[in-house]
């Protein structure tokens, strides 16, 4: 959708800026166009600047990062590879805050939880979208209602439930609940499944397919884009989650990256800003790479969020 309109816009601009165009560009319009680019350009710059500054700080020696000079590169710039390598290896190999371990934990939680969330949400969504049964409306209402419950409301009693189950001190509180589906994902997949033509079920049923067969062999393969959106957004959710790990994890060697980053900042003694920014860059970079690799899914996700 966005691609189309981009093409349209670029065509229009070409037509507008065509020198042989019969209509001369009027000076006022040109001015307002320049102004628009100036405004959006400065806004775009302001939005990118924090990230640029984060990366820039991460590649400076400590004394320069903390100096009042405004410069993107270390002085002299030839220092860059050496200081960057030094800073990042100091972060990665820190003896008390173990980022390699936190990365491993985050990936364990993320993979278990993404698979569970995607599969279970699809299963429940199928039950709400493609099976006619009494009570389906009530279940759907309960899904919608829980979307409004803020996590802080649940956190204290949830801790007690997990303690009762003996999960405190393990990674389980962070991924097992995902296997029971998530309200928003169920809702989104239900909307998607409802859009798939009914005839598919009928044909499969005549061929002797059960509901499970229809779900597994027809609906899931047809819903790959929607499932990808759920998986991607849930992965990002897990990567970012701070409050869950803060409450449920008790040992440092179970920490996730988000929690580890905060630990790195708050550990005893002042962590220098250049190292803190190197650590932040390490946590942010995988998401930026993921974004570049999955741009199309992102755009679809963004558009479906609007449909809600």
């Amino acid at each position, binding site marked *: 959708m966005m691609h189309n309109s981009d093409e349209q816009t670029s065509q229009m601009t070409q037509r507008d800026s065509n020198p042989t165009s019969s209509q001369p560009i009027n000076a006022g319009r040109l001015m307002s166009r320049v102004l628009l680019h100036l405004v959006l350009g400065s806004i775009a710059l302001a939005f990118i600047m924090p990230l640029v500054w984060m990366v820039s700080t991460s590649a400076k020696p400590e004394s320069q990062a903390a100096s009042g000079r405004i410069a993107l590169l270390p002085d002299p710039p030839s220092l860059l590879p050496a200081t960057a390598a030094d800073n990042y290896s100091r972060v990665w190999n820190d003896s008390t805050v173990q980022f390699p371990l936190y990365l491993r934990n985050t990936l364990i939680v993320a993979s278990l939880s993404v698979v569970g969330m995607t599969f279970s949400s699809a299963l*429940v969504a199928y039950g709400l979208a493609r099976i006619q049964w009494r009570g389906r409306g009530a*279940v759907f209402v309960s899904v919608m209602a829980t979307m409004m419950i803020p996590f802080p409301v649940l956190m204290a009693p949830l801790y007690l439930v997990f303690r009762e189950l003996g999960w405190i001190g393990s990674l389980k509180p962070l991924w097992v609940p995902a296997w029971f589906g998530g309200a928003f994902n169920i809702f989104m997949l239900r909307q998607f499944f409802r859009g798939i033509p009914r005839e598919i079920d009928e044909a499969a049923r005549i061929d002797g397919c059960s509901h499970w067969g229809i779900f597994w062999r027809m609906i899931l393969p047809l819903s790959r884009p929607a499932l990808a959106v759920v998986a991607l957004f849930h992965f990002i959710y897990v990567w970012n989650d701070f409050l869950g790990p803060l409450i449920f994890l008790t040992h440092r060697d179970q920490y996730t990256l988000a929690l580890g980053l905060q630990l790195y900042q708050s550990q005893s003694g002042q962590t220098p800003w250049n190292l803190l920014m190197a650590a932040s860059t390490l946590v942010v970079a995988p998401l930026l790479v993921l974004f570049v690799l999955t741009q199309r899914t992102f755009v679809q996700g963004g558009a479906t969020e609007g449909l809600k």
Partner: protein
Amino acid sequence: MTRLSRETLVGLLFTSPWLIGSLAFMFLPMAMSLYYSFTDYPLLEPPLWVGLDNYKRLWSDDVFVRALTNTAVFALISIPLTTIIALVLAALLNARVLGRMKKFYQVAIFIPTLVPLVASAMVWSWLFNAENGLVNRLLALVGLSGPNWLITPQWAIPALLVMTLWGVGQAVVIYIAAMQDVPKSLYEAAELDGMGPVRRFTNVTLPMLSPVILFNVVVLAINTLQIFAAPYIMFRTKDGQNPAGLHYAMYLYDNAFVYLQMGYASAMAWLLLLATLVLTAILFVASRRLVYYHA
């Protein structure tokens, strides 16, 4: 078995993950916390029934009142401001004359929404650092001496606002997508009626977008009331807590997991839930005349 009841059984099976999960991880904990909110429960001892004591005590607890005020003030400023800025940015980015720079602007505004809150709070702690932060260095260039953003109480809410507005791209993307679904014919008709770009925005775009705007405002309101990670990292340091940076969910967390007062924390949790429901209801009722649902 009749076909109807068989389908019911299959339906229950398919939805069973949700039925079990929501019971175990939502409805049961909520029922528990409703009960605990009427008890004194210091975690290590069994809960003791105290009636409405917790709810009464809250209002004479200065820290609670401060946390509540901070979050309420922040929400009152942040929700409208974020929405207006997101709509204006979306409208500007939707302008037909941007050409190939459009993609660049969009990506630039969207990228910060990918940054995890913890990292984003960390980066802004550095930018807002009093002596060496970039914000104050830039202010010094024009001869201003910037405040101690994270320590001075008056600047806590503005600093948090800037940090959260950095993530406005999420809403911008949703509004742009919604704007592209508005039929072109409506704009053509408005143009024929002699409307300029501003009136086309207020008279065509806004009404057509109103359901999406309402939904986003509701989600934003729910999320703003429970703000935790960003103020926790920016305003709570080894040197202590900036009182103006203490938010509702942070104090709820403190009561539950630092002071181990599960009863008191549960009362706070139920008040937060009530506040969320009331705010959502207000938004829906207040917008009834403003939202235009087209077929």
